[in-house]
């Protein structure tokens, strides 16, 4: 029986923890104890709330009052005003940009209002380290049903009918994959959960594991039952210590309850799961590389066929899905395929979790129904571009996704539409770029990333991306030549078509889409030796405008190479031969006297 009158849901996702949410929790405990209210107010640590930009976050139940940007100093006042006197504190709430009235209730904040939660249904509601709270939210019920009432064929039929597709990037129908693996001959089979998530700026899978580890376990057990696997692995990168520790703890609790192990629910089905920590190689997102890594050999992709469903981990039939795919499974079994298929579009069912980052006001984790437009995600949920800047492009699918321009903002987010636009769904990274972004530099940056992460096994990826990077570097340095664009396009197609795995198969996407939608920027770099976004250092010059310079000396003082000359109250001059184009003078000038072109 709960004697509590308030529950304080303290976000302890990685974002909020790094913003000191654990100190907030300690301060709350102190202040509540000081007032003798420990028995009235329960403090619950939850996974990622999603609104990471405004952390640390505390949500007060039952009224769902949303507090943000909390500091330790705020806590005594919060406790006194809200928890003792019952007056919520507007100054600690969310106030929409340009407005004066704070929004108290979480679900009234636009960031949350347009979301539809399936994979993240328990985020911010349960304590991920307490299995009982998961069970209270219907946890492990779908698994019991799958083990006691359904045949493996019926489970597969349900997942197929739901239309669930791989959320790791490929979009392959999950039920079909399971069916193929089940049909593969062999008694020894494996299931793997891919939690490697190597995309820079992506944190969907990490947040799911941190918020709701038992849902991943439950999905994995249901899949294992359908396929006939006796052992499973959860592969999480070692850079995710909180995810690793929560998952390890969840596995211990599930084992202690007999939800993993021998003869689960007396069904005769036995299954065990081990957590494996990855060493942080992007190529391990590729399923065959991940399996090699699990086996302890170099994480290079394997030639397919044979596909992993036939010959995977240790040469045995193996089914691999990513975290977000697995976490959808219990909901499908519990609520039925028809319910799930009712969300989304004709070919892309359900929801998708995105990590919304870059030049966007509401950085965070969002879950939306498939088919929502990019505009709704960027403007309605994301709150648009900060600093009065204009939107320029959004990259979907992480470093190997494409950059889509403003004209494509009304594109519905589904597998087919994104592919047609030259991008990919990917695992769900959404990087928003504003007008100050040079698209050639973006292409160079992402290609450098994929080239660094290329394992080097196959020639097109290893050599192709290296040469493409060299051409892009030349262009950004003002050494581009006529014909470079066409050469890049040709090489991109070659690398895409002939690489061994998905890394090379998608690495050229940023180059191809920036050429497709921002060709004029490439041409400006090559023909006019000009960077329209004024980013590429070799193509820009900083000059001081004599009519605006007041001689305040701020620029000269902040110049790291002392290349600005001038006396107090006299016009300053930049020595172009020494300037390293760091931009300090431009940022510190209060009179807009430093021109960049």
């Amino acid at each position, binding site marked *: *029986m709960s004697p509590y*009158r308030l529950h304080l849901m303290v976000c302890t996702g990685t974002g909020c923890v790094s913003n000191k949410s654990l100190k907030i929790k300690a301060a709350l405990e102190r202040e509540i104890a000081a007032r003798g209210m420990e028995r009235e107010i329960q403090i619950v640590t939850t996974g990622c709330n999603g609104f990471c930009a405004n952390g640390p976050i505390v949500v007060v139940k*039952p009224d769902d009052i949303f507090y943000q940007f909390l500091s330790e100093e705020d806590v005594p006042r919060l406790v006194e005003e809200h928890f003792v006197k019952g007056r919520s504190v507007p100054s600690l709430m969310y106030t929409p940009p340009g407005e004066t009235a704070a929004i108290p209730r979480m679900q009234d904040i636009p960031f949350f209002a347009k979301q539809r939660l399936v994979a993240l249904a328990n985020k911010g509601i349960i304590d991920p380290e307490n299995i009982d709270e998961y069970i209270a939210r219907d946890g492990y019920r779908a698994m019991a049903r799958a083990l006691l009432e359904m045949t493996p064929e019926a489970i597969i039929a349900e997942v197929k009918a739901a239309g669930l597709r791989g959320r790791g990037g490929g979009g392959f129908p999950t039920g079909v994959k399971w069916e193929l693996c089940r049909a593969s001959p062999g008694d020894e089979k494996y299931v793997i959960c891919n939690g490697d998530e190597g995309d820079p700026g992506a944190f969907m899978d990490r947040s799911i594991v941190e918020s709701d580890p038992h849902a991943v376990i439950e999905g994995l057990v249901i899949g294992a039952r359908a396929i006939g696997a006796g052992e499973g692995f959860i592969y999480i990168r070692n850079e995710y210590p909180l995810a690793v520790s929560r998952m390890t703890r969840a596995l211990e609790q599930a084992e202690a309850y007999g939800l993993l192990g021998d003869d689960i629910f007396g069904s005769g089905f036995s299954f065990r799961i081990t957590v494996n920590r990855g060493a942080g190689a992007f190529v391990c997102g590729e399923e065959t590389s991940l399996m090699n890594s699990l086996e302890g050999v170099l994480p290079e992709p394997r030639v397919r066929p044979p596909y992993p469903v036939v010959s995977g981990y240790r040469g045995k039939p193996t089914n691999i899905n990513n975290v977000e795919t697995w976490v959808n499974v219990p909901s499908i079994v519990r609520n039925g395929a028809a319910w799930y298929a009712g969300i989304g579009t004709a070919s892309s069912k359900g929801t998708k979790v995105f990590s919304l980052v870059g030049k966007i006001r509401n950085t965070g984790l969002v879950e939306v129904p498939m088919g929502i437009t990019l505009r709704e995600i960027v403007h309605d949920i994301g709150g648009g571009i900060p600093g009065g800047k204009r939107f320029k492009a959004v990259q979907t699918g992480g470093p190997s996704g494409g950059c889509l321009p403003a004209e494509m903002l009304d594109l519905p987010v589904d597998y087919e539409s994104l592919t047609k636009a030259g991008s990919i769904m990917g695992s769900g990274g959404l990087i928003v770029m504003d007008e100050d972004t040079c698209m050639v530099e973006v292409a160079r940056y992402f290609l450098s990333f994929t080239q660094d992460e290329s394992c080097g096994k196959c020639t097109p990826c290893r050599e192709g991306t290296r040469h493409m990077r060299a051409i892009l570097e030349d262009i950004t340095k003002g050494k581009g030549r006529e014909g470079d664009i066409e050469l890049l396009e040709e090489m991109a197609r070659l690398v895409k078509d002939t690489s061994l795995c998905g890394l090379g198969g998608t690495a050229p996407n940023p180059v191809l889409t920036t050429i497709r939608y921002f060709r004029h920027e490439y041409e400006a770099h090559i023909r006019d030796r000009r960077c329209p976004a004024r980013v590429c250092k070799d193509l820009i010059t900083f000059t001081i405008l004599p009519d605006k310079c007041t001689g305040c000396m701020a620029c000269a003082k902040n110049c790291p190479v002392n290349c600005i000359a001038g006396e107090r109250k006299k016009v300053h001059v930049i020595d172009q031969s020494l300037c390293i184009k760091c931009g300090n003078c431009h940022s510190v000038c209060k009179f807009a006297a430093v021109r960049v072109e």
Partner: protein
Amino acid sequence: MKMTMEELDRIAERQRAATYLREGAGHAKVTVHLGTCGIAAGAQPILAAFLEKANAANAATAARAADEEQRKAAWVLVTTSGCAGLCAREPMATVEVRGAVPVKYGDLTPEKVARIFAEHVQGGRPVAEYALVQGSERIS
């Protein structure tokens, strides 16, 4: 430990009681007004009395209800808010029974709480002699 469906239900029931508050579910919600005036007038013992009654009632519900839906429907939540504006009549509480108009009670004592809980929260009949007003202020 060997997990069974019965055991899973038992854990879920035990834990749900603790998490109903987060879902805002239930048959009735009692809000005790904890403004400075309310606290000074003795709202803390009123809150404690409502909590005690609610806990006892919820325990009985949990034992009696056939399933989760029934239990959720019969649940009583107790929460707090600020000064209701009528400081002279503190301690005050608002009782909202699902589907009915909220009723504000004033000049509360633990004895009045016992009667309000039995007749209004559980019985659905507001205690007219303790009630100050029906409904809420308009919020424009």
